[in-house]
Every structure is written in C-alpha cells, then in structure tokens.
C-alpha cells in the first residue's frame, strides 16, 4: 500500500501511528480515519504518558512551595515554556512565551492589553477576509468600544490574499491581524512580506499561528510578526493550554490582562505592582499538567522534524487533490490554492450539491471523520458564496490509504443521495 511508509520524507508513518492510541479505534465498525486534525489533533502516548507521570509523581502548585515536588513542578513548568519558545525560535523564551488557554485567549490578550493601550477613537486596524473568528471578534469588540474602523485585505478566487493594494490599505493602520495559514482554504500567507509593509507604515502585526505552528517549521525571529498565538491541542498536545509569543520590547510596557495571584509582585490596599514577564499575563494557577503535555508534544514534533512533517503533508495533499479530482471531476470543488506547496494540508470541498452536514454524516458511517460547517470563518464563507463546507485535514499520522478511504466513502455518499 503506497504511502504508509513515507520514507522519502523521513517519516515512518506506519510506526509512528502506533504512538497514537486513538487511531487504533473503530468507528461504526470501521477503523477510524481521522481527518479533522485542523480542529484538534490526536495525542501520542509520549504526551499522555508525560502528563500522567507528572500527575502521579510531581504535581504541586507552581511558583509557591519551597518543598521538593513544588520546586520540581515549577522547574518542569518553566522548562516546558522554554522548550515551546525554542520550538518557534523565540529569542527570549523565558520571558516572551505566555501560556494562555488557547489561541483565542492569546489573541484576546493582545486586543485587551496592546489594543487598549495603543488604539484610540478614529484608529484603523487591518484584517484579512480569511481570518478565523478568533482573530476578528476580539477586534470588533474593541472597535465598538474604542470607535475603531476595520479594513479588510480581500482574497482572490483561488483563496490567496490580494496584496496589490496593500500599501494603500495599510496606510494609517495601527495593527494588522493575519492568519499564517487559513483553517478553511489551507492558504499559506506571506506573513513576512505583509509585515515588512506594515512595519514601514508603523503598524504592529498580530499573527494567528493556530494552523501553521503545528504543521510548518516556525521561526519568529524571521517570520516578521510581533505577536503569534497558537493552541496546544492542534499540535499533538492537550486542550486547555495555548501560547502567545510577543516581542519582549512590546510586552514589557503592557498592563496585565487578568488580575489575581501570580501576576503581581506586591499588593497593598492602595494598589498593586504587576509581576515581570511572563507571569504578569498569567493570573491564577496555570494549566500545569497541560504545559508538561505541550512540552512533550513539542519534543515529539522536533524528534520527527518539522521539515519532514511538512514534506509528508505536501505529498499527502498532492495525492488527495489528484485523487479527488480524478475520481470526482466536476462533482467536486476544492477551495483554496491549486498548488499544494502553497497551502497546508487542509482541504475544504463541496461535493455535488450535497450539503456538508449530509456528506459528513455519511462519511461517519465509514469511520471517516471530517468537519462540516462554517469553520468559524463566516466572513470567508460569505466571500466564497457558501454557508458551509466539508473539510478534511491532515497531520503527520495520515496516509494515502486514509485519502483512499475518504474517496471511497465519498463515492458511497454520492450513491446514497442518488
């Protein structure tokens, strides 16, 4: 069976699949074909074991106790922070990596701290038409409160940003919010090019890395953005923890986000003194077990190598686009860039006129898990002229055989609706 062992890309997929207990499950009498990693990825044993081992041997609250396990817990928690920082090339990981609940909270943190400090009535911000609601709604909330105006970078029919007019669009803008990779179209955006123009115009760039960090080599020291938010649960880690990276010099002068324990140096009746980076932005007991899990996920990804993962996903996306086009011709419309090297492993599609809900329901009968809906990107859905799409998305553990199963189940879907 082709593709099970993608040796060409240094990835022994058949072996690494054994690390993922969930992939051995059956659904509706079929082996599971998990094609929804863009929503949330599965976790390898290494992550699950690291979390359990920590819980069973070391758990205590961090930054508080002087006793042995509390100190060890703190040490491991901070080590996870540094590991995540190194993973994305953060120049100063011990200060610049802020743990949040998820990517959404990270983006809200930027809106509430940087945004409230720097954005005033009449100011403009620039977003793209392909943003996830997580990088739209926090800005709309702030725009309403602060009387800001929001401009939009449009997309073309292939799902690429139209940047011809960027200099005019960015003129007078204080902040640019842009996704590194669309969770609907798979489009990889030229964050660096956009950031150069944005910085020349004096704007700060907030990048949504929720889809890119799990699948592409990421180096914030060259990426060009000033903030980058992502979630552990899309990169083989647990739910409940995300990361916001920000440039030290931008984070340092910012006021806290939430108030409470951890985020202070001193509290008197008259007021409080906020803590240093990164704790100033981590009020209350953090997700400690989850941080350990995220650290293990990063270690797992690094051991395999992000370059290999990217190469495997390009090859799988190519195979999927070719297979679906060959088997279904005009019956299938795949959204987003045609060139698999210009996109991530996310395939949104429309199959005949069968509603995505119905497609997904029938696929489920064959154990195939795909997403159906608006993918939290309603402005993009309106631009595409659809209410919803079905979306298959790949991770390092997917194979060409998964794609074949998807295609077979789609053919059954077609037969079912006649």
């Amino acid at each position, binding site marked *: 069976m082709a593709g099970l062992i993608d040796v060409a890309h240094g990835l022994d997929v058949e072996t690494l699949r054994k690390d993922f207990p969930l992939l051995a499950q059956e659904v*509706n*009498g079929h082996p599971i074909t998990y094609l929804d990693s863009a929503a949330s990825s599965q976790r390898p044993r290494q992550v699950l074991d690291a979390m359990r081992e920590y819980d069973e041997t070391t758990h205590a609250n961090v930054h508080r106790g002087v006793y042995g396990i509390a100190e060890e817990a703190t040490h491991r928690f901070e080590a996870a922070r540094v590991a995540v920082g190194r993973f994305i090339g953060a120049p100063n990981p011990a200060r610049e990596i802020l743990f949040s609940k998820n990517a959404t909270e990270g983006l809200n943190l930027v809106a509430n701290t940087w945004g409230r400090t720097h954005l005033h009535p009449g100011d403009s911000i620039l977003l793209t038409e392909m943003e996830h609601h997580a990088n739209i709604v926090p800005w709309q909330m702030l725009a309403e409160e602060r009387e800001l105006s929001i401009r939009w970078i449009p997309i073309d029919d292939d799902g690429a940003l139209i940047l011809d007019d960027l200099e005019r669009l960015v003129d007078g803008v204080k902040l640019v919010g842009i996704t590194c990779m669309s969770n609907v179209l798979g489009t990889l955006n030229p964050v660096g090019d956009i950031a150069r123009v944005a910085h020349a115009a004096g704007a700060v760039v907030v990048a949504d890395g929720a889809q890119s960090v799990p699948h592409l080599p990421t180096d914030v020291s060259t990426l060009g953005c000033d903030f980058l938010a992502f979630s552990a649960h899309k990169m083989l880690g647990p739910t409940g923890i995300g990361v916001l990276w920000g440039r030290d010099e931008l984070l340092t002068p910012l006021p806290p986000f939430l108030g409470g324990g951890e985020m202070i140096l001193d509290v008197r009746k008259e007021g409080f003194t906020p803590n240093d980076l990164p704790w100033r932005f981590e009020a209350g007991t953090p997700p400690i077990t989850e941080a350990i899990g995220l650290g293990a996920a990063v270690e797992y990804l690094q051991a395999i190598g992000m370059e290999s993962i990217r190469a495997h996903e390009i090859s799988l996306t190519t195979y999927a686009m070719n297979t679906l086009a060959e088997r279904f011709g005009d019956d299938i419309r795949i959204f987003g860039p045609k060139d698999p090297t210009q996109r991530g492993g996310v395939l949104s599609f429309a199959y005949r006129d069968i*509603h*995505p*809900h*119905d497609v997904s*329901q*029938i696929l489920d*009968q064959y154990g195939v898990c795909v997403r*159906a*809906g*608006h993918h939290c990107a*309603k402005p993009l*859905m309106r631009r595409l002229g659809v*209410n*919803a799409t079905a979306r298959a998305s790949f991770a390092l553990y997917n194979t060409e055989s998964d794609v074949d199963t998807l295609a077979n189940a789609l053919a059954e879907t077609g037969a*079912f*609706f006649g």
Partner: protein
Amino acid sequence: MAGLEDLYREIILDHYRSPRNRGELPSPPAQRVEGFNPLCGDEIVVTLEVTDGTVSDIKIGGTGCSISQSSASLMSAAVKGKPVTEVRDLIRTFKGMMSIHESTLPGKDSQDEDDIEATEAQLLDVDSLGELAALQGVVKFPVRIKCATLSWNTLAQGLDEAESKTESASA
C-alpha cells in the same frame, strides 16, 4: 448504533429532493422571518400569511442540509391551511418529539425520571404528526436535532410576530 436509514427515511429524501412550498411570499403583506443555525451557518426564511386565524399560505426559502430542508418542507405542507391554534399545537408536539430522546441521551443533564415521564405524556401521540413522524429518527443523531427544529422555531417566531401585528392593528 443508529443506522443511516433511521435518519434518511424515504419521505425525508423525497422532501429534500422536491421541496414543497419553496420560495418567498411578497412581504408585506406576508410575515417574513429568518432563522439561523449558528453551528453550521444554515439559514432559513419563512414567509407566511395569517388570515382570520388561519395560516393561509406559507413559503420556505434559504439553504440547509437535507434534514433542515425536508423538515421545513414537511412543516409547510402540514401547516398550510391550518388554524393558528392547531399549528401551535403541532409545533409543540414536534418539538416534544425532538427533545424527548435528547434529554435522555447520555451526556445531557439527566433530568429526573418524573420529568422525563412528564415530557413523554406531553408528547401526545406521534401518529398525529403524520408524515412528520418520519423525522423521529433524527433524535438518534443529536447534532442534527437543531437542523430539524430550525424551521419550526422560525415559524413559531413568525406566528408571534404576525399575532402581535394584528393585536396592535386592532388595538
């Protein structure tokens, strides 16, 4: 495990492929209401005319999956020409059918036994729903219940709005 045939009954597929009362009535005079399913982005437009306490005409617009579309189509056929009071009863019965199993599904807040029996008693008899009973299988697919009830909630809102209009007109 619930099979696909529980969900996609022949009547449902028929109404999906050839929806009844499709379109929009001119509004005004018709009452026009839009319904949204925020989970999936489906939109439905119900336009209805209420004359002398009767739903004299109804049309369904918008887009959605087979379940939401067929439910809307079946609904339009069931309520057209019926007195508003009967239509309201039908809405209650239909939504009862849609929620009874939902509330007994694992993972839902488990109501106490009495509550469930009360809902069951209130369910009236499903036979009174006629063809609409074909949608009963949807309750085995909890995520699809909202698809089935979208048009009914929209209709209920339309009736409320139509009634408040006549009230204010006669006041």
